[in-house]
């Protein structure tokens, strides 16, 4: 399913934090949203999974405005993995994953065999089937994220929206999580801090700065030394990754970018 964000504007407490953003993700594409802190990445994503209402502009799923769907209908198309991290309420891994069926169930309906099959499959896809009975709060950060991804899979969405899914994870867990996105590919919108991860995982990148899109395209087109200096304020060289051939950003960690960017 194709996702379009058209001329999106969002105002929070009287301040416009997203001003006229155009984005899209083609069917089955993994699209990254990158940008400095406060550039509006999370805000854009929140309008896609309907936590925030845009002051103007539209979010379209195959051309249909998500605001014209009911919340339940929208949740059958779009699943979100926000930055919220869990709870202290004694929920088991399976119970957390089962929440993904919420938009499909009426008030008093229990789980049917179909629900169980979907939940089991999702747990297997993220490699957590053996941990179904464990308490969610006893999991490590990497395990939690995989369980939350399984919950999103259980929603059987056409579009997956993830807000910094690799935050606070060690490198191995970052790689595991991102490879799951590629393995079970569907239209994906993901905000990422790690530009090298974005360069190797995403088919397309949109760079946000100050609530506006400043560059869009393939990682190779977008991630240049000039852009990194201007938007992120860092000195970096972009080279080819010796193992994968993806763009690899080599940062100069000793000093921020000077006025004249170097490539």
């Amino acid at each position, binding site marked *: 399913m194709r996702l379009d964000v058209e001329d999106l504007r969002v105002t929070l*407490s009287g301040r416009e934090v997203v001003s006229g953003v155009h984005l899209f993700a083609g069917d089955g594409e993994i699209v990254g949203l990158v940008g400095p802190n406060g550039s509006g990445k999370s805000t854009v994503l*929140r309008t896609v*999974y*309907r*936590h925030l209402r845009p002051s103007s502009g539209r979010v379209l799923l195959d051309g249909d405005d998500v605001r014209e769907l*009911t*919340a*339940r*209908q*929208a*949740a*059958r198309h*779009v*699943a*979100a*993995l*926000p*930055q*919220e991290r*869990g*709870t*202290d*309420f*004694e*929920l*088991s891994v*399976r*119970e*957390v994953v*089962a*929440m*993904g069926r*919420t*938009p499909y*169930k009426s*008030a*008093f309906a*229990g*789980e049917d065999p179909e629900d*169980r099959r979907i*939940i*089991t499959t999702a*747990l297997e896809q993220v490699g957590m*089937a*053996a941990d*179904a*009975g464990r308490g969610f709060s006893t999991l490590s950060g990497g395990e939690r994220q995989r369980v939350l991804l399984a919950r999103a899979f259980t*929603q059987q969405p056409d579009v997956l*929206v993830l807000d910094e899914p690799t935050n606070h994870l060690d490198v191995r867990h970052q790689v595991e999580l991102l490879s799951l996105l590629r393995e079970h590919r569907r239209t994906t919108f993901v905000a990422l801090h790690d530009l090298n991860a974005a360069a190797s995982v995403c088919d397309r990148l949109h760079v946000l700065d100050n609530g506006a899109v400043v560059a869009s395209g393939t990682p190779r087109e977008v991630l240049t030394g000039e852009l990194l200096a201007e938007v992120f304020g860092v000195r970096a060289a972009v080279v080819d990754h010796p193992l994968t051939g993806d763009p690899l950003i080599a940062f100069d960690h000793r000093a921020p970018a000077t006025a004249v960017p170097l490539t």
Partner: protein
Amino acid sequence: MAVLSPRRERDTSAVRAGLVAAALAVALLVLLTVAVSLGSSNIPVGQVWAAVGRKLTGAAPAAGTSDVIVWQLRVPRALLAALVGAGLGLVGTAVQALVRNPLADPYLLGISSGASLGAVAAIVFGAGAGGLLGLGLSGAAFVGALLSFSLVWTMARRGGGFSPLRLVLAGVGIGQFLSGITSFLVLQTADEQQTRGVLFWLMGNLGGAKWSLLTVPALAVVLVGLLLQSRARGLNALLMGDETAAGLGIDVTRLRRELFVATSLLTGVLVAVSGAIGFVGLMVPHVCRLVVGGDHRRLLPVAALFGAVLLVAVDVVARTALETQELPVGVVTAFIGAPTLLYLLDRRLEK
């Protein structure tokens, strides 16, 4: 080593919850019998059931006073204890999910204080004089509960943020303030008899139980219980956070509003019939979560049953612990509840 398949896992936890519920239902029946049997004059269990049977089949009551004691005094009281306990269990569970804080309870959050103030104002200004099966009193308590809950919530959310600590502090602060006004109102009433009555009731008291008083709380417990059960998936989603809930297709604002009204309504009705009974709403969901887990589809019915069992038992203790007089139920729940709260705090700090 065999690994349980997820399917088996769900089945076992559902079966477990079913067994727990069945055990609690049996325990409730046994305790209700004991509660009717014990008192200033003990009535043997056989006679209790015989008296209830005669009443239900319309047979003539046996000679003597025991049928009257059983049917007019003790059965309604035991049933009121069960209803109030079930209601407190439900309210506690819902409020904890609503504010995403396992230490929340209508008493700690000042909701009960608001309800008490409403009820006392109704008594003092004469609006609650038993009319309409106590609807006047319940209505005033409901309004008080809703206002205080909204006030606490607004204070806790001020500035957009939302911290559990701020919520509890706001609840305690506003609760104290409202209790102050309540005390002032009570002292203003010249009638000493009435003052003593109101104070005793404020401490949590089931002594006013009679058949005519049961209708409103029974309706409230059943209706709010059904509403909460129908929102069980929404409550689960709220535990993970508002954004997650929105992403799962839940209208969070509307769900919150429903829960606010429903929990305030039930708290108001409960306070109107039994005063402010503390700690039950805190303890019951906690204990039940440890046994059947946090999924509200299972947690809500089990919490209602356990609340009923607990309060029937507490009321037996309250009635029989002292030879000379009855203890307010709230005193007994405080004796059990305060140490439990401290234990839970300690356990959470260790995490």
